[in-house]
């Protein structure tokens, strides 16, 4: 494989942001198929169109996911990328790595693949971009035997779960996102590797309502930390903020002169529930009214902390727009303890109930959120055996179209028209 001219791509080598072109060129020096990647990409830049074909089904024995097949539509011109499958390798929780581990993985990938990767894919996997069909099994062997690592998900199965860094480095995490993510990933290896679902399914775990792993927008089950008691206040620290001794919002706005910190304007007035006030110089919160939006805590991390009775809200059904339009996850369980002590019993019970039902009635390529929409939220919670509560909705229905069940109506549905006509002449 020879170098191709890449005048268009070369223009992406300038500028302050790291250049993937420079990087690829350097990698090409030791992995010449990367010249073909660059060459084909250059052709796409000229033609303004992709040169990849629809992927066929490729994979490793016994797995139905983890590999995405890919072939060039210009194989003669770019033989190095004739096959160009990606491998999804499951990432460790919160994406911490040791250099030893990464280096070993890179060595494997240079051996079996193109040497090009994504750190990370949008779902969270390590994406190894580009290898031939015949390399898949050898790579998988080495990955499992040498590194003790495994593939992630793809296809109609559970996708590799992901989490924010949680309590590993964040003061706000209301449960250990890493541990539950890890444990459930292990528990559901079968569901990750062997497609048995109507469509893909995703878990994501965020430690608090800031939702740093974007769970509410991208996961069929979104577990988002929260608390049910009072925000913990350090009044002395509040005073330091007011005095201007601590930077607002942990310094997140320090690049611009926004004037002196104003507790009233920046916190109390913006609180969406208006549940805060000053009593003298004491900050008060009516926690019953608080919806735990995190704003005040974000602004004053040294003075305020989430309450101590911690857990998570469980929301279900997020997805991208294909087909019926995008959905955010919907609040189904306002508060659940997420604890290793009971091996995540409640969460697991819920997950499996959702799966059992969805596997039974979900249509092909129907995300669980769409199934929920199709049957209606009342039916969904009924089959989940969850009591209806107003927390599940923004507002009550505004149409009057209630489906009553026959048992709810005295006398049932069956009536005798003749008897009716006896009292009501037609």
């Amino acid at each position, binding site marked *: 494989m020879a170098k191709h001219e890449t005048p268009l791509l070369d223009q992406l080598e300038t500028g302050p942001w790291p250049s993937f072109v420079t990087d690829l060129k350097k990698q090409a020096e030791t992995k010449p198929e990367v010249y073909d990647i660059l060459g084909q990409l250059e052709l796409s830049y000229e033609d303004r169109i992709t040169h990849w074909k629809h992927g066929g089904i490729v994979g490793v*024995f016994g797995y139905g996911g983890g590999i995405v097949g890919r072939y060039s539509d210009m194989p003669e011109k770019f033989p190095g990328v004739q096959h160009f499958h990606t491998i999804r390798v499951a990432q460790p929780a919160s994406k911490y790595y040791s250099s030893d581990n990464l280096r070993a993985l890179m060595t494997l990938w240079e051996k079996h693949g193109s040497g090009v990767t994504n750190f990370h894919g949008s779902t969270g996997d390590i994406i190894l971009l580009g290898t031939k069909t015949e390399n898949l099994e050898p790579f998988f062997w080495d990955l499992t035997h040498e590194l003790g690592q495994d593939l992630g998900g793809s296809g109609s199965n559970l996708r590799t779960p992901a989490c924010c860094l949680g309590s590993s480095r964040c003061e706000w995490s209301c449960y*250990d996102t890493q541990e539950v993510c890890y444990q459930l990933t292990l528990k559901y290896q079968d569901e990750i590797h062997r497609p048995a679902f109507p469509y893909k399914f995703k878990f994501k775990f965020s430690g608090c309502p800031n939702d740093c792993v974007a769970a509410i927008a991208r996961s069929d089950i979104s577990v988002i930390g929260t608390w049910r008691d009072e925000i913990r206040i350090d009044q002395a620290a509040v005073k330091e903020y007011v005095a201007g001794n601590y930077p607002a919002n942990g310094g997140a706005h320090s690049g611009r002169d926004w004037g002196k910190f104003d507790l009233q304007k920046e916190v109390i007035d913006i609180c969406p529930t208006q549940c805060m006030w000053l009593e003298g110089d004491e900050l008060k919160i009516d926690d019953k009214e608080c919806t735990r939006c995190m*704003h005040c805590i974000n602004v004053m991390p040294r003075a305020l902390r989430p309450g101590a009775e911690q857990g998570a809200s469980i929301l279900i059904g997020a997805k991208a727009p294909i087909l019926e339009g995008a959905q955010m996850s919907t609040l189904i369980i306002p508060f659940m303890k997420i604890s290793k002590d009971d091996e995540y019993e409640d969460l697991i019970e819920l997950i499996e109930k959702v799966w059992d039902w969805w596997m039974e009635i979900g249509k092909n390529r129907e995300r669980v959120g769409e199934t929920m929409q199709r049957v209606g939220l009342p039916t969904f919670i009924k089959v989940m055996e969850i009591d209806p509560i107003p927390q599940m909705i923004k507002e009550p229905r505004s149409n009057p179209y209630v489906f009553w069940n026959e048992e709810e109506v005295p006398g049932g549905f069956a009536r005798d028209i003749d008897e009716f006509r006896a009292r009501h002449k037609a």
Partner: protein
Amino acid sequence: MGYNPDKPMEGRLTDLGPPHYEQFMPQVIKDNKGKWLWHEIVQPGVLMHKSETGDEVYTVRVGSARLVTCQFIREVCEIADKHCEGKLRFTTRNNIEFMVDAKDKVQPLLDDLASRGNRFPVGGTGAGVTNIVHTQGWIHCHTPATDASGPVKAVMDELFEYFTSMTLPAQVRIALACCLNMCGAVHASDIAILGIHRKPPMIDHKRITGVCELPLAIASCPTGAVKPAKAEVDGNEIKTVKVTVERCMFCGNCYTMCPAMPLADPDGDGIAILVGGKISNRISAPKFSKLVIPFLPNTPPRWPEVVEAVKTILEAYAKDAKKYERVGEWAERIGWESFFEKCNIPFTEKSIDDYRLAYNTWRTTTQFKFTSHVK
């Protein structure tokens, strides 16, 4: 040893899952997990977290192209070995984080990073623009309507000052997806760059029989535009499909199900800009991004129209919004009519919803502002 193709199942290991995270955590993280008390961004790209044990961890966040190579990861490892006991992490937005357990270790690390040209820009914290989450584009996917890494590089070059500073009213999350599948959170981003097709699929009658299950292709279309049909191929009548082009909204779902229905096209494809989405539950509830520019052409290698559009929106927002106000919160406060005016974006009927829940977006009040749109 290694894989033996003759006995593929012998000694096979499966379902190992990912390695346990703990072995990869720096010592100070391991020691203080669950004990962190507060944090501070000491300078753009540098966070300090304080533990109840008195420990501190300093995190240096570094931008990355995401599309990287083995040799790049090796360089990252080298840095981690030198400064961070060989540990590091990646963020949910594809930045790299190097952590050290004492303040005096920060500057040497920063100096080292700075010495490596543009490879390790420090930033992405607080009220700025962090890394653009994005997808494959022309580097790997078969359905894109635009490239991913190229436009991202072009936009980040232009917005670089916002990556290394914290001067915006709030964080601004930019995302790119190369087709309507939206692999990422384009549907909930402050500014979203979205590849779109605008030509209906072609039907490759010669190929369709072999590669497609016709009923699946027909069922795939959300608007029912794909219908059964017949065609002549090499003198034989075959079963195939046709597309009612008036009903096609170019979603590409039929192509996902049937490779014989390609829809990409150099002139048809391009980029739409959506704005005002958010994920966090801070102050206001999560919001979807909204389509404000229906189409910009694909102009590799630097997509100047897209770069310009993103920058214009960002700067209008930076100038006008209040502290803590996300792009979508700002647009809602000033009203979308003012948004279009302030960003100098022509309003077109393409921004008016006509899909399933469209009625909810119609303005059913007399409350509006007199912008230049009202003649």
